[in-house]
């Protein structure tokens, strides 16, 4: 399930979610589940973008705060927040997002390469930009996002 194969298909299914005022999309094939349980155990002394760990049906999932990853201010957990679980290697990683908005079908030809930064967030985190009717949607580059050390 690499980026190449999904890119060659014409229609991609994107899960849309909000981080601050930005709408991000992630290929649904990469999403394991979207979890509304947000009981996160903080891990002290962890890298600052790690919000903590979560009990995902008996496994420990690391929760990454996308806001922190995008160098934004972290906010307190609220009801709208969700955890988008993706798989990296043999572990589950949760991406903490402000809210999950929609799932759309996107024509991959409409996905343009990303600018060097998207509303202040480094472009390396994005695979491309998809233009929706009224808004722009940045498609996340999961591999880069999850790279452990910066």
């Amino acid at each position, binding site marked *: 399930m690499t980026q190449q194969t999904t890119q060659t298909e014409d229609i991609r299914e994107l899960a849309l979610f909000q981080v601050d005022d930005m709408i991000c999309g992630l290929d649904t094939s990469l999403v394991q589940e979207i979890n509304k349980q947000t009981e996160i155990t903080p891990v002290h002394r*962890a890298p600052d973008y790690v919000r903590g760990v979560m009990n995902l049906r008996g496994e420990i999932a690391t929760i990454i705060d996308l806001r922190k990853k995008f160098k934004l201010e972290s906010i307190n957990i609220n009801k709208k927040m969700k955890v988008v679980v993706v798989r990296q290697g043999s*572990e589950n990683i949760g991406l903490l997002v402000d809210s999950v908005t929609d799932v759309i079908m996107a024509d991959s030809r409409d996905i343009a390469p990303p600018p060097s930064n998207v509303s202040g967030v480094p472009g390396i985190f994005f695979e491309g930009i998809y233009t929706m009717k009224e808004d722009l949607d940045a498609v996340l580059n999961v591999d880069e996002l999850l790279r452990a050390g910066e």
Partner: protein
Amino acid sequence: MAMIDDEETLLAFVEESKEHMDGIETDLLAIEEDGADIDSELVNKVFRAVHSIKGGAGFLGLDNVKEVAHAGENLLNLVRNGELIPTPEMITVLLEGFDLLNSMLNSPATSNDVDISEQISALKNALEPSLSQEEKSSPTNEISLGTPDAPNLFTLDSLDVALSLKGGNNLYILVYDLIKDIEKKNKTPLEVVNELMQTGDIVDSKVDIDAVGKLEDDSGERRVPFYVLFATIMEGDILGSFIGLDDSFIHLISPESLIQPQAGEPISVQEEEPTASIETAPAEPAAPKSAPPAEPAVKNIAKKKKTAPVKPMVKDSSLRVNVKILDNLMTLAGELVLTRNQLVQAVSSRNQQGIDTVSQRLNMVTSELQESIMSTRMQPIGNIFNKFKRVVRDLSKSLSKKINLIIEGEEVELDKTIIEAIGDPLTHLVRNSVDHGIEQPETRVVNGKDAQGLLRLSAYHEGGQVIIAIEDDGAGINTEKLKEKVLSQNLMEQAQIDAMSTKELAKLIFMPGLSTAAEVTDVSGRGVGMDVVNTNLTELGGIIDIDTAMGKGTTITIKLPLTLAIIPSQIITCGKERFAIPQVNLVELVRIPAAQVKERIEKIGSALVMRLRGELLPLIRLTDALDIERIYTDPHTLEEKPDRRTQIEDRRGVYREWDDQLIQENEENGEPADERRQSRERRTNPVSAYNIVVLSAGDFHYGLIVDRLLDSEEIVVKPLGSHLRDCKAYAGATIQGDGRIAMILDVVGLSNLMSLTTVAEKVKNQLQEHEKKTKGGEDSQTLLIVLNTEDEQMAIPLGLVSRIEKIRSSDIEITGGRKNIQYRGGSLPLFNVDEVANVGMRDQEAESCYVVVFPIAGKEVGIVMSEIVDILDTNEMVDDITHRQSGILGSMIIFDKITLLVDLYGVVTTVMPEWAMLTTAHSPTEEDGGTNILVVEDSKFFMTQITNFVSDVGYTPFQAEDGVEALRVLEEETIHLVLTDIEMPNMDGLELTRQIRADERWAGLPVIAVTSVAGEAAEQKGQEAGVDEYLIKLDREQILAKLKKYLG
């Protein structure tokens, strides 16, 4: 050709071979030990093992493996038939051969590139003595064997052929068809090989791949022939039915055809046998490497293998599980399903009682299931221990030492992962023992030891852990030399070293960059290793301990957890989170009441330390270590508030609010200000106590301040994700019963995080300074520090105390004018120091008090104290003049306070003089006279004490201040018994005893050591020196009893 490329087959072969190899080493060593007295069962076992390997290897095209196995097999065959007597040299050759096999099996893909000529020729040379002249005459001649269809299938050394025919064997070439005879019959080639081996020997085997290519064009029957050169005692007609092969595929090679043509006249003979063709070829110079026709094909396979490396073998190791365990697991799984059904039913019908029953059942099933699954992972430690037979044998040979290796507790089981991980550290330790520990035989004899050294490896269970001990009776660790080394390499300061005990010194060998071997040998002594051993074992949650005595030997003990997957842990809280601390790292839990924080927690430089039984322990707060916001529970409102205190010993900061309130209240009540202060100090609120977890981080201990202590639980360790890999503070995480996550603290990681090692050192330095200040030539004394009244501190020698009990004041009864308490079914008379001595009165109103119980005149009595402060070792001078009075022996300064040393005996006898009569009544009186006792003691205080009570009961005491003087007195006077201190200047008590024991004039003279240094080790030392009894100073009862025993 799927069959041969089949990784599964290769894997199965390697695994099976490994299993065969496992036992071989031990067996070979046993064979060596047996010598001429051959245990044929054992030899057979090894033989069969090698044989299977050979068979499989031939099939898979692992030519090198096959050849080495084959050469080894030949040798073993002769041993089996009694034609060769195993010699150590032969066993060495075999062992080396098997090493080679083993390493080739580890990477089968490259095994054919390994140079095996050395081992092959060594193995062949070892055969020499057994061969008859005719067999020897042509050892390098080769014979080609083949079927009529395929001549030259096998090229064999004529020697091998001759060997395979021994014992009335017939030689056959069997032609299997991989497709028809094997695959279609749902067999695996290995099964066929194994089947064959039950009836005979596979001399050689080969798959003819060339034939495949040819036959593939043919649309008719496709055959992939698999040739087996088979030696068996069976006749051709029954063989076919036995192995399920049509007679036409069995070719007999007649023995006549195999007879060698005369040496020197090599001629090629093409036998026109109806069943088989044989060709004898002249020997080529490079005999083992000659290429028979089919070999290139086999090579091709090997090359093909190389392009697809057999990776999974390294990654996913598999495990053999006893079928019984599997059956048991199955049963338990069934039970689990049943329990689930019950649970579902109980829940849906809301049957509370049912749920209770089911949960109980679930609990049981789960534990059993856990146990069973764990047992599949458990492996006997013998798996590792037995490897050491070889290690020790080889090492002792190369070092020309004689060593008797004793292995005990092989059956003790440990988790697979642990077994795998302790192999290397253990090997290192064993090597060290052999290399450095056990001396050369000559040296041993000179030192009066058996020339053969003893090395004992043992394993046993203790308290849910496994203890592994490596014990040798060698030279021991030269701690002096270690000291020099450490100093010369500037690894530590002189002062630090001086303060260390022998045990601590011995532990220096775990310091990085240290080696004490005078010469660097092949085996060990490169200055790396022991520290690595220590680190590795600590990582496993193991604890290593060393006990050594110069000239006597060394024992290294390793404590290991049974498993790493499920570990008993202490759950604690800090801030709002829960954490788990592995029980193996836990030493003790200490709770310091708020009132004692000031006395017990101090600051040295920037480091916090705690006073624990006279030792200083570095302290860290978990909140600091993890950067958690500190909260504290307001003792008044029980609310949790952020704690902004920076200094733990500064109690005022926190309590200001509360104090102010208190002061106001008190002022309203009109209480004077001074009392206010006191009442605050006295106030002990349970919620403001400190909970300290004392942890062991390898070679030092430290205290961790946590908020609350919860239960101890068995937790399941879950790994942390890659993003948290750099967090050294955690060893993993676990999910608790309520679904919440608790992080598992890494005890060593935490101490590194806080740079605690340096703190520990600082503390040590401080301690030394402290000790230097207080050192006054007195020996140290373990004292129980108590309070009778709030500000009058007293001390009681701990050695005299049997127990300390906390009682309620209301339980004290007054009977016959005496205070008593009902205790253990009898009455315990109670005494107060203030009854006798002119000291403050104990607060009788206090709710509870402590009773210090000790024996006197054959019964137990108690002295009542209001509070217990501490237990500590001190060598403070006892001032026996200033505060001397009845019931008080003297005074000393402890914790900057004048502390009265209580005379337990004095207190009791002053109150109850008749009891003093009881204790002396059975002692000799004046009429015995002339019983002279020599008291040797350097401390004036103890000297007075001892001489006083010795003369009290009617003996005549003589005094000597040290060993030298004592010997002089012994020369001059008739002495009936010696009472000696141990620690003394000029000549100590042990040396004195040795001198007395060495002199015939004083044969039979009883020597009683009286000391304040109690403990088994000290006692043992005393006994080794020749001391008859080892007693505690001031234990008047015991001393008098022993005097009576020795003097009649």
